[in-house]
C-alpha cells in the first residue's frame, strides 16, 4: 500500500468507523503505535530505556508507575511533544500507522492532528465554549459557519457535555465546573478528528462524580478512537483500560491485558507496586 493510500485509509477510518472496520483486516493494522527500543535522554540523564510496546487500536491502554518513572515522558513522545524540551535526545523507533514518526519526512503537524492530547488540569482557552471547540478546525481552514456548527455540536456530543452546555455555547468556558471544562477540552481534541487520544492524568484534578463521567466517556470514546491514558489511580486503570503498561525507572517492566496484570502480575516489581508495597 502506498503511503498516500495508507494516509487516506487512516483519515477515512476516523471519518467513518465502518469503513475502517472493513478495510483494516490486514495484519499489523490492529495497532496504532509500534514502539521499538525507544531510549530518551534529557541532556545526560536517561529517562526511558529500551521501551518496546505495541499500542492496540480502539482500545484503552493505561500507563501506570510511580512519579518520575517516565510514563508522562513516554506519552509526550508519542506525539513528539517532548521535543519542546530542547535538550531531549531519542533513539529507537516509534511507528504510527507503520510510519516512523522520527523520520525527517514525517510531518509533526500531521502527527499532532492525528494524536490529540488531554492534560491533567483542564486548560480551556479564555474563550467561549464554541470558540474552544472550533479552534482546531478553524486553524485547519474551516470557515463556514454551518460546518463549524456541526463540528462543535458533534464534538461536544461525543464528549458527553452537549446537554450541559448547549444553551451556553457562547459563554466563557472558564465559567464551567472543572469536570465540564475537562470534557470541553476533550471535545476540543475530538474536533480535529484525531485517531488517537493521549490523556495525561485527566481526572486527577476532578471530584469523584466528574471523574466517573470522564471514565464513562473514555469507554464510549474507545469505540471510535484509540486511547492511551497515564493515571496514578490504579483502580481507574483497572476499571477503564484493556491493556496496562507498568513503567519503573524509565523501563517498561510489564505490559499485559489489564485483567491479567491486576489479578496475576508476572513481575514481582509490578505486584509490589500495584499492591502498594512501594511507590
Amino acid at each position, binding site marked *: 500500500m502506498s503511503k498516500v493510500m495508507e494516509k487516506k485509509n487512516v483519515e477515512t477510518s476516523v471519518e467513518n468507523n465502518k469503513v475502517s472496520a472493513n478495510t483494516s483486516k490486514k495484519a499489523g493494522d490492529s495497532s496504532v503505535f509500534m514502539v521499538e527500543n525507544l531510549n530518551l535522554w534529557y541532556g545526560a540523564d536517561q529517562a526511558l530505556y529500551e521501551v518496546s510496546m505495541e499500542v492496540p487500536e480502539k482500545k484503552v491502554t493505561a500507563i501506570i508507575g510511580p512519579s518520575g518513572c517516565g510514563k508522562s515522558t513516554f506519552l509526550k513522545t508519542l506525539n513528539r511533544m517532548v521535543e519542546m524540551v530542547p535538550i531531549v535526545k531519542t533513539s529507537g523507533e516509534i511507528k504510527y500507522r507503520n510510519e516512523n514518526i522520527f523520520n525527517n519526512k514525517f510531518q509533526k503537524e500531521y502527527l499532532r492532528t492525528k494524536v490529540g492530547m488531554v492534560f491533567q488540569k483542564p486548560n480551556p482557552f479564555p474563550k467561549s465554549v464554541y470558540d474552544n471547540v472550533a479552534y482546531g478546525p478553524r486553524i485547519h481552514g474551516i470557515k463556514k459557519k454551518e460546518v463549524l456548527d456541526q463540528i462543535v455540536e458533534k464534538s461536544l456530543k461525543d464528549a458527553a457535555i452537549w446537554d450541559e452546555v448547549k444553551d451556553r455555547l457562547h459563554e466563557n468556558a472558564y465559567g464551567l465546573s472543572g469536570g465540564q471544562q475537562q470534557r470541553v477540552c476533550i471535545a476540543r481534541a475530538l474536533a480535529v478528528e484525531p485517531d488517537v487520544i493521549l490523556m495525561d492524568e485527566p481526572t486527577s484534578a476532578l471530584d469523584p462524580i466528574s471523574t466517573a463521567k470522564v471514565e464513562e466517556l473514555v469507554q464510549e470514546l474507545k469505540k471510535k478512537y484509540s486511547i492511551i491514558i497515564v493515571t496514578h489511580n*490504579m*483502580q481507574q486503570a*483497572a476499571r477503564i483500560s484493556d491493556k496496562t503498561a507498568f513503567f519503573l525507572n524509565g523501563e517498561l517492566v510489564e505490559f499485559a491485558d489489564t485483567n491479567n496484570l*491486576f*489479578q*496475576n*502480575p508476572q513481575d514481582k516489581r*509490578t*505486584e509490589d507496586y*500495584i*499492591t*502498594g*508495597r*512501594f*511507590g
Partner: protein
Amino acid sequence: MIRAHFVEELEDLKEQIKDLAVDTKYSLDSAIHALYDANLEQARDIIEADAILDAKEEKINDEAVLMIAKQQPVASDLRRLVSAIKISSDLERMADHSTNIAKATLHLGEGHGIKITPELREMAITAMDMVDLAVKAFEYEDISLAKKLADMDDVIDKKYGQIVKEMLELTAINPEQIQHIMQMAYVARYIERFADHITNIGENIFYLVKGKTYDLNK
C-alpha cells in the same frame, strides 16, 4: 513498609482462618469420639458449639469484605482475601458435617446394640490429617502440599464406597436394624463431604499462589 497496617490485618485474618481450621478438626474428632462412645451429651455439645464456629466464619467474612472496601486490593492481596472468604466458608461447611455426625449419634441413641464399623474412624483420621496438611499448605502457601490433598481424598472416596457397600450387605442380614445401619452410612457420607471441602481448600490455596483455578478432583 508502605501499607504495614494492611499487611498486619492480612496476617491477623490468616491466623483467624488457622484457628477456625483447628476448631473444625476438633469438631470432627469430638464427633467421632461421641459416635463410638454413644456419648449423647458430648454430641449435644458439638451441635451447640457449631454456632461459635459459624460466628468465627462470619467475622472472617466481615473483615475480609471490609478490607476489600477500604484497601481496594489487587493481585495477590485480592486473591488472599477472596481465598479467605472461600476457605472459611468451606471450614464452616465442614463443621456442619461434624454436627451432622453428632446428630446421627443422637439418632442412634444409647444401647442401639450395633457395632460401629472401625472404618469410619479410619476415614475420619485421614480427613483430620488432611486438615493438618491443608493448614500447613495455607500457612506456607505451598501448592505441592495442596496437591497431596487430592491423593488423600481419593483414599477417603474409596473407603466411602466400601463402607456403603458393607452397610448395604449388613441391611440384608439385619433388616430390623436398617435405621441404625443407615446412620452409619450417613456418617460415612458426612466424612466424605468433609474431605471434599478440604480438597476445595487445596484448590483455593492453588488459586491464591498461582492466580489460576485448579481442579484437584481430576
